[in-house]
């Protein structure tokens, strides 16, 4: 629009209100930024080696030497949290990226081609969706052994259907728009239109939505490690830390288990706040 008309001005006023930068958004960004920096620069930031045992300081309460105390083997909890942030953040990131790419490709194919391809992909997605992601991950561990590689791949596949469904519905609505017909009339091939023109128009919305998966994946991977199927000792991992500290709970040493649990909660909440804000901004914006 060269000039806003009164009717338009009213619509804008009614729909968006005032887009405010909320406190929770700012805090979430800061929290996630701190965790990310800590994970990247763990060797520089962590006060101790995460695997260093200190039998003189078993179950130490928080003090000046150990800010967050120590666990049953005298390992510094803060250092383990910092090192644990590496797997806690990196693994979900890989899952989100991989599932987004896989889901977008499937969804684009199904939505663009329609017909039997759509039906076939749709049933495949239904089958995948009927299993909880954690179950698929456990199955992958059972087949390929413990460790993070198998669960990450399994989760990437398990989360792809959510992305694929969204992509498919967006592609279908996009395909019906006259600009796609205009490209066809100009002589462009279907594949070119789908990949070069329609795909870039749906990626922002899909991408914003799949950032929301990050939190879920983080929590589920932590759960997997808690069950002893994910990250293996002695590598520091939040889920594994909770698991290892279970025994201490009976003796009243709840901090070594509580702190990694709190870390999981903080990061998941922060990621979800950011993800929701992003998808609201992108999804709620008026398309052209």
């Amino acid at each position, binding site marked *: *629009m*060269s*000039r*806003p*008309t*009164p*009717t*338009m*001005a*009213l619509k804008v*006023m*009614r729909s968006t209100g005032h887009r405010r930068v909320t406190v929770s958004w700012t805090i979430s960004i800061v929290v996630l930024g701190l965790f990310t920096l800590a994970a990247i620069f763990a060797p520089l930031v962590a006060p101790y080696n995460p695997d260093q045992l200190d039998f003189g300081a078993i179950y130490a309460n928080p003090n000046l030497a150990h800010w967050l105390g120590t666990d049953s083997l005298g390992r510094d909890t803060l250092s383990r949290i910092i090192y644990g942030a590496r797997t806690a953040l990196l693994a979900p990131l890989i899952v989100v990226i991989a599932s987004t790419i896989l889901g977008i490709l499937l969804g684009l194919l199904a939505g663009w081609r329609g017909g039997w391809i759509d039906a076939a992909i749709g049933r495949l997605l239904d089958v995948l969706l009927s299993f909880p992601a954690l179950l698929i991950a456990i199955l992958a561990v059972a087949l390929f052994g413990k460790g993070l590689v198998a669960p990450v791949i399994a989760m990437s596949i398990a989360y792809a259907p959510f992305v694929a469904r969204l992509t498919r519905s967006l592609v279908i609505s996009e395909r019906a*728009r*006259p*600009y796609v*017909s*205009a*490209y*066809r*009339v*100009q*002589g*462009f*091939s279907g594949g070119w239109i789908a990949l070069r*023109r329609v795909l*870039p*128009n749906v990626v922002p919305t899909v991408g914003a939505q799949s950032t929301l998966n990050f939190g879920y994946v983080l929590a589920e991977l932590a759960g997997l490690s808690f069950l002893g199927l994910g990250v293996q000792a002695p590598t520091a991992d939040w889920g594994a830390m909770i698991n290892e500290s279970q025994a201490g709970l009976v003796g009243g040493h709840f901090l070594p288990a509580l702190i990694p649990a709190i870390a999981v909660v903080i990061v998941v909440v922060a990621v979800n706040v950011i993800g929701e804000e992003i998808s609201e901004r992108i999804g709620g914006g008026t*398309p*052209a």
Partner: protein
Amino acid sequence: MTLLEISGLTLDLPNGKRLLHGIDLTVSVGETVALVGESGSGKSLTAQSVLGLLPSGAQTSGQVLVEGSDVLTMKPPELLAYRRSTAAMVFQDPRAGINPMRTIGDHLTEALRLGEGWSVARARERAIEVLAAVDMPRPHDHLRQYPHELSGGMLQRVMIAGALAGSPRLLVCDEPTTALDVTTQAQILRVLAEQRDKRSMGLLFITHDLNLAASLCDRVYVMNDGRVGEEGPARQVFLNPETAYARRLVAATPTITVQPNEVPAPAATAPGPAVLEVRDLTKTYRARGREPVHAAKNVTVDIRRGDALGVVGESGSGKSTLARMIVGLERADAGTIAIDGHTLKGQPRKRVDRLDRARRVQMVFQDPYLSLDPRMTASQAVEDALHLHHPRLRMADIRTQALTLLSSVGLATTQAEALPRTLSGGQRQRVAIARALAIEPSLLVMDEATSALDVSVQAQVLDVISEIRRERGLTILFISHDLAVVRRVCERSVVMRAGEIVESAPTIDLLTRPQHEYTRLLVDSVPRVMLVGGNT
């Protein structure tokens, strides 16, 4: 006797933007007053303020007096009573204004039962009475029907009936016929005029259509940019406008009135070879469990090189399907389409076929807001097309060519870098035209290419089209529901109804001597100002 008197009405949004700059307007009892203007002129806002419907947080000054009381200062309960008994409104889109889950009867009786405390039987009686007043064929049956069972025209009559149910003395109509076909529009206007006379209501009629305003209304207010630019008796404003803006608006408004001294355009300037030959084209949509819809029945059309052929018809006549079959977006059931003597088959798959088809025929779509890729700038849109068809050209040359094309449709270099959302409707449609021209097609199909535009913008785009025709000798298939627009562009026209071509003749002849009864109905339904004497 004055019914509505608006004086010095201003309206500011909370952000300080002033949308109305001192409107003065009066409507007397039994009078019909038109508020004419293009989109963004503030005419809807003025109309809504009469009902006390103001944008939230808006600051107003001035007065809106209806029968002596000021709507702007009414308290909510007073406003409610006022809307129930004194003034009512009919909106543009009847389907958007009615609850799809409730019956017509619910819609009509609800306000009477809940607001006035009438008994069900009494409210029903009134509903039947108002339905009969708006010429609905079976008032008793309609009460049990749901909105989806009625056509747009019928539904608009229901909305008018709903507005009449409270026996208002002032009826405000905001573009009540814009979404309707021209023959339906004629029926609605007749109903409105009848009820106005019978109930001696005042009618405030908002429209962008100057012809319509002049044919229906006693007086006309021309609005522009939140101000009343000109007012006066309808015929005077239309035939003898005083202000520059009104003159421009009148000049831009296409009309089907043929001047007595106007000679028919020479039939087919120097009979050239046929560019488009459509033979017995047939297409039927068969949806499961429904009556088959015949979108095209044995359609036969020819266009010679350099000609422009108009295809006129109401919604559902199959004119868009014809266009989509010609450009290859739909497959015909039977019949042939040949361009430059080359018969086209279905949707092309191979690259060579696709490019060949594209060079034969290009299309400009109806809605420029949807037919451009939101992510591509104006010049990118044109460059894409050029690059596809001239892969060997260097990028710099492609860019120069794109800019030349854009400037040939009247877009500046600065606008070439703009994304569609920052361009106006007219500018977008120019981009779409430049994009189609980039491929240098033998035939250009324009499907309602100016319907979404304001009259003055439409006039500019039509000028661009005729300029291009002059310079390039382009052959055009021009599809429109608007006889007046077709008349401005096309020497010859065909009239379509329900998939069939009912008449084919030079456009002037269609307007002056329609042969088929449907053409006659179509021509007679178009509102117009009589040039010589008499009332309209």
